């Protein structure tokens, strides 16, 4: 897809994610919304190998939404691309549906259980190390929240990935500055973020993560095959992107909008899509 089409897909995905939350009264729109450009670029921008007909195809690249509360951001894509039959999205969190509140590997296209922070990177490192030792050309993309950088396991695995020169390993830090109770820098400082990843031995690219142009450029660099070790993309994003009253507002982490707020959000999301 070209950039215009990718932008349209982003607008579509935000609307779908919002409607999922409205329908089921479950899910996390703001955290999902901040990483929309990244997942759209991965699936529709040609940066990731997948096989919708055989989701466990051994040759596939892996994607981990390690910030599991945003795992739902993949569901509209997985339905759109045919990983699951049409109509599954309407059954989000229903007992007869495939898409669960938090992702798990029984869902076609999902690699791991996430929801507790700090696991996706390590699991992905296992996949990448196995692939390298087996001589297989498989890459893992791991989207972690900036709040995930508080977890010690994040840095344990960062050291491990750098030591093993995992050049098939791309970590995206969704730097939306928000955790449940407040902004990260008001709780416990995370900055300087990019410097931390550089110091840990990652080829680090810092971008506006809500700019499809910058996201595709960063992914092109990360997957160029010219980088000798793991890559970190520090994606500066806006939590709640697309819905004005949610943007950059930590308190909207898992709050449900009322009828009036739903109408406002729909208007805003549709305006972008148009």
């Amino acid at each position, binding site marked *: 897809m070209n950039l215009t089409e990718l932008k349209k897909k982003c607008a579509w995905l935000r609307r779908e994610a919002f409607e999922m939350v409205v329908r089921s009264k479950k899910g996390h729109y703001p955290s999902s919304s901040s990483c929309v450009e990244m997942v759209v670029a991965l699936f529709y921008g040609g940066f990731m190998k997948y096989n919708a007909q055989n989701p466990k195809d051994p040759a596939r690249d892996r994607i981990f939404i390690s910030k599991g509360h945003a795992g739902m951001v993949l569901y509209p894509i997985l339905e759109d691309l045919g990983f699951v039959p049409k109509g599954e999205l309407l059954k989000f969190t229903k007992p007869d549906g495939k898409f669960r509140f938090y992702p798990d590997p029984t869902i076609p296209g999902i690699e791991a*259980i996430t929801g507790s922070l700090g*696991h996706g990177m390590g699991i992905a490192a296992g996949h990448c190390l*196995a*692939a390298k030792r087996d001589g297989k050309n498989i890459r893992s993309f791991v989207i972690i929240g900036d709040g995930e950088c508080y977890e010690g*396991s994040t840095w*344990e*695995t960062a050291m*491990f990935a750098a030591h093993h020169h995992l050049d098939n390993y791309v970590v995206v830090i969704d730097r939306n500055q928000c955790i449940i109770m407040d902004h990260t820098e008001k709780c416990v400082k995370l900055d300087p973020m990019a410097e931390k990843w550089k110091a840990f031995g990652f080829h680090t690219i810092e971008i506006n993560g809500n700019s499809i142009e910058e996201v595709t450029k960063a992914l092109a660099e990360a997957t160029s095959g010219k980088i000798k070790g793991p890559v970190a993309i520090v994606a500066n994003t806006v939590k709640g992107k697309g819905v004005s009253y949610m943007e950059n507002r930590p308190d909207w982490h898992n709050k449900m909008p009322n009828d009036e707020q739903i109408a406002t959000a729909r208007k805003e999301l549709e305006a972008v899509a148009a």
Partner: protein
Amino acid sequence: MSDKAEKPKILPRDAFIDEVFLAAKKNPNIYFITIDLGAKALDRFRVELPNQLIHAGISEQNAMDVAAGLAQSGKIVYAYAMAPFVTLRCYEQIKVAIASMFLPVTIIGNGVGYSYNDAGPTHYATEDLSCMRALGGIEILTASDTETVLQTAHLTYTKPALRYVRLDRAFLPDIYPSGDKRFMQDGIVEIESGKDACIIASGIATHIAKDVKKILAEQGHNVAIIDAFRIKPIDGAVLKRVLNPYSKIITLEEHFLSGGMGGAIVEAMADAQILKPVKRIGVRDQYFLENGGRGYIQGLAGVDAKSAAKTAAEFLK
């Protein structure tokens, strides 16, 4: 079973790793993760199979998540460290990344109980069993001699599953003859017969129980010794059969009583409607900072042969 693994004067960890090493030589999909715990047997593994040995760093959490990723990639995975670290330090990783995804990883805890004597509570594993028992879908095996170690190692690569293998740090004298199938089949095995009462124990405590038996014999009590090799799951029917001859049951463990081996036995007895008087003997409910060797600490904790025999004799009065 490999006939090359040395027997009998071999540390549990060396016996285990040697057995896995010989299998790994034939199967490149066997991966062994160490969290900075060495072993004589690991030196050979490291040199000859560097591609199958992973040093995770002193990073237990990373080790477990990486183990999950390797297992998802079709590898037969071992994660090995001192027992307190490979369990409690990465407990949630084991729960989420391994147990919740039903992945067949073998977790090897070396040095259970007071194995690392005098090192203090940081190095003691007197709650590892309770913690690991609480996880869903895990099998727990405590080796009490070289034969149990070797057969356990063999099991882990022939039938991979989520298992926690508890090894003592010390050499443990032989209990079972080569090729004995009873402990693998039944999980709970009578190793010395008795009359009215039995002592159920596992790992090093099985050997302590043998000494307890001698002390009790001097006082006119003839107790049987039962080795609880597999503490999760416990087969209620087997337990019923094994306990049938005995009117009183004693359990002995170098571990806290809360959720420990004795607790597991009592729960299984209740579920199987085996209603008999039970006395659980385990580590006194506190941590010990004192030094003086394993026997001394066991004495403070109330689980050395002398203390255990005293408690048992009271119960058998």
